[in-house]
């Protein structure tokens, strides 16, 4: 048995059955980090003492006593005095932080290339990007450098890299998981969530980390549905396929993988229904105004006075978004930009509400691609920020609506992973997970491992 092949649930079982010790477990992963991290650059820093099931934590989560940089040079050397709620909760579940994973600077990016600490490489093809912003977190899971990892999804930063690197990434509903101690990008959109080797792992981690903590006023007490009930098949389930997610710009090979996955879902008993989410085309524009507005305010505290370094350590993308957001909020522009974008956000939310509305024959879940393409070459889009922004086109709408979504392995195009996205109504992670798990159990994509 190869210890590092096991998913979280199997690892817990093996530990319970004393098939190996915790020391052997952490040793096996530490060994792999030593062997592969130099090349993959999944971790910014490694923990010297790992006392529990090894988790890789995106470097935006504050970890007491452990450097936390948010992928930015401005915070190099910053050691927080406190743990993020999510980290604190994992520590009570016999999980130990094995390292802080690489990410785009302040989670701003779709490729991992905006990290101040170098790009993380895609384990399936090291000349390709891993996706972002939770780049190191997906690479670490895909390459078995940890049992699972934590990421944050603001406009797709868990789902998109999970798709490009062939792992499971769950973006919970906004407010399902506390953001306390997570260095924010855009506060109204940030969703911490798990990146795992299997859907059942995502379910387990979500259960550990979700629920209000008394520190995040937007974290709601909405009980997760019974975790033991799982579907055998998808009989009677209505799955919506939005036509806007299959337009121009979707790579034909990716499209055929997704169509194949939809066919599989139909075989499993689901009723496939064509739907429309008419405001999808405005999502990216609205997102970049709202997100950058919040960014411009959230990053004001990095003034180089009390902690961190001076502001010339901010990267290009960060500066770009600070300027964009500052402009959108400026007196005289607020109504034309911020306010209008907020209205678009409401319309996008309504798109989903209508699509899911049971009284008008709405669907149970929505499926589609996560990313219009597979992983691209490192450096390919770095000088074209707009092309980079458009790679988030299928993930951003769910972020604006605050609904849960998952990316799970749905096949391969040109030997690169393609993620299948499943979206469900607000606070219905149970539906996302149930459908994903049935699909996973009836396919073998997740069993493939990259050759390192």
């Amino acid at each position: 048995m190869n210890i590092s092949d096991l998913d979280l649930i199997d690892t817990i079982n093996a530990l319970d059955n004393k098939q190996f010790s915790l020391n052997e477990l952490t040793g096996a992963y530490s060994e792999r980090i030593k062997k592969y991290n130099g090349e993959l650059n999944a971790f910014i820093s490694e923990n010297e003492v790992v006392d529990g099931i090894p988790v890789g934590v995106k470097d935006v989560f504050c970890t007491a006593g452990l450097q936390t940089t948010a992928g930015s040079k401005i915070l190099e050397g910053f050691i927080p005095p406190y743990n993020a709620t999510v980290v604190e909760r994992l520590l009570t579940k016999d999980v130990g932080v094995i390292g802080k994973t690489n990410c785009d600077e302040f989670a701003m990016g779709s490729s991992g290339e905006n990290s101040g600490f170098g790009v993380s490489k895609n384990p399936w093809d090291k000349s390709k990007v891993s996706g972002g912003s939770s780049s190191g977190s997906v690479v670490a899971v895909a390459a078995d450098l940890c049992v699972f990892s934590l990421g944050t999804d603001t406009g797709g930063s868990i789902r998109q890299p999970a798709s490009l690197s062939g792992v499971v990434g769950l973006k919970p509903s906004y407010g399902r998981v506390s953001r306390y101690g997570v260095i924010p990008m855009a506060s109204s959109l940030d969703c911490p969530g798990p990146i795992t080797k299997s859907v059942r792992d995502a379910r387990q981690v979500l259960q550990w980390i979700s629920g209000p903590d008394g520190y995040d006023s937007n974290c709601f007490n909405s009980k997760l549905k019974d975790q033991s009930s799982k579907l055998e098949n998808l009989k009677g389930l209505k799955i919506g396929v939005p036509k806007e997610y299959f337009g121009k710009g979707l790579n034909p090979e990716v499209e055929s993988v997704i169509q194949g996955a939809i066919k599989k879902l139909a075989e499993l008993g689901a009723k496939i229904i064509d739907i429309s989410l008419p405001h999808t085309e405005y999502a990216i524009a609205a997102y970049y105004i709202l997100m950058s507005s919040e960014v411009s305010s959230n990053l004001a505290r990095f003034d180089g006075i009390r902690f961190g370094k001076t502001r010339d350590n901010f990267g290009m993308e960060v500066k770009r978004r600070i300027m964009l957001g500052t402009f959108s909020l400026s007196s005289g522009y607020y109504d034309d930009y911020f306010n209008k974008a907020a209205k678009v956000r409401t319309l996008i939310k309504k798109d989903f509400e209508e699509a899911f509305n049971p009284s008008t024959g709405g669907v149970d879940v929505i499926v589609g691609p996560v990313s219009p393409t597979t992983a691209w070459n490192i450096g390919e889009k770095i000088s074209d920020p707009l092309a980079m922004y458009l790679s988030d086109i299928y993930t951003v709408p769910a972020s604006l609506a605050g609904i849960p979504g998952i990316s799970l392995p749905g096949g391969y195009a040109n030997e690169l992973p393609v993620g299948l996205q499943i979206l469900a109504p607000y606070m219905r992670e149970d539906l996302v997970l149930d459908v994903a798990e049935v699909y996973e159990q009836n396919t073998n994509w997740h069993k493939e491992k990259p050759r390192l």
Partner: protein
Amino acid sequence: MAQGEAKTLKYSPVIGLEIHVELNTKTKMFCRCLADYFAKKPNTHTCPVCLGLPGALPYINQEAINKCLLIGLALECQVSSESRFERKNYFYPDLPKGYQISQYRWPLCKNGKLKLSDGTIVNINRVHQEEDTGKLMHQGEDTVVDFNRSGVPLVEIVTEPDFTTSEAVREYAKSLQQLFRYLKVSNADMERGDMRLEANISLRPEGQTELPAYRVELKNINSFSFMVKAIEYEIKRQSEELEKGTKLTQQTRGWDDNKKVTYPQREKEEAHDYRYFPEPDLPEIMISMNQIDQIKSEMPELPLQAQKRLVEKLGITVSDAQILTENAEKLTYFEEAVELAIAEQVSPKQVANEILNRGVDIQKTSIIELVNSLVQRRSAVISDDETIRSWAKEAITENPQAVSDYKNGKTNAIMSLVGSVMRKSQGRADANIVKQLLEKLLYV
């Protein structure tokens, strides 16, 4: 003096007031640190939230919201069923997040009013909730920051530009201070900075109804009397400038009490664009009718209500009632003393008289001591009609002016006759009997 000058002015002042008051909640506005920072060791009441550390989030203190609503309701505001916190973005070393959580487009309470003693209504634009900043301290060449005050709940009360005199501003500000203390929401101490005043003042030609195109903001003024002086100085300065044909512009000014002048602090060009937007870390604040009813039911008696009660139920004069209701402590002392006094057949008026005219220190004199001394003195009081009558006759012959005034309808003039009799009795005559007797004698 100011009013005498105002008559010669071609311009009339337009003044609006902003009052900040720090709430006396147990913990801060958005974290669990103790809110009492006064004279505490610097940076000991702090946490990741009020230090603005990366990743820290605000969490609403309901006690502060309730106290803000209490102020709003006492000022007859409408409570917004939905309101929001918003971010006010600006850089200053005492503001660790780079923005202050405040309210702008969606305040908790709006459209209130307060009536001044002459009957004028001051319209209140808004009562909103925000957080205080840290405190800069200058030590020689260095400036250091104490974050103990960072995040302490602050309520801002903004009036419409309804004032035309400095005296009205003073009365309004003092009434609010009294209100805060009655509501027990703040110590409202000006010197400690619990309560801070800012005035916006400009002049317009008499008869003009639209607001002037400029306004001068008077800031960082920490006493009522400095504010009055600064406003009076500004009225004079601005009217002189306008007279000279100067075009006045938006400006922030402070008060220099040594030189007795206001001085410029910031010009319009340096004014901030605060880039307000809804605070994304906090949900909308929903206030239900039930909550409002609950807070209303907890509303203590307000100063004006108490005054009315003292006048109507206990027969106290309006001016005495005003003084007795200055603060809740004095009122409680008086009422407890009255309760005891009535049992001893001492009238509420006598108790009031004792407290107000004899300068009883209510901190040091117990209620029992007070009433006992009244009872003892009563035995020495001269209420013998004949003795008083002879003194009264003397007083009438000695004060022809007061007598004719009284007969011409100036009923107050009788008080100087009463005073005269009291002096003759060396204070031992019963003033009520004296007054009644004088009235009888003068009626003829």
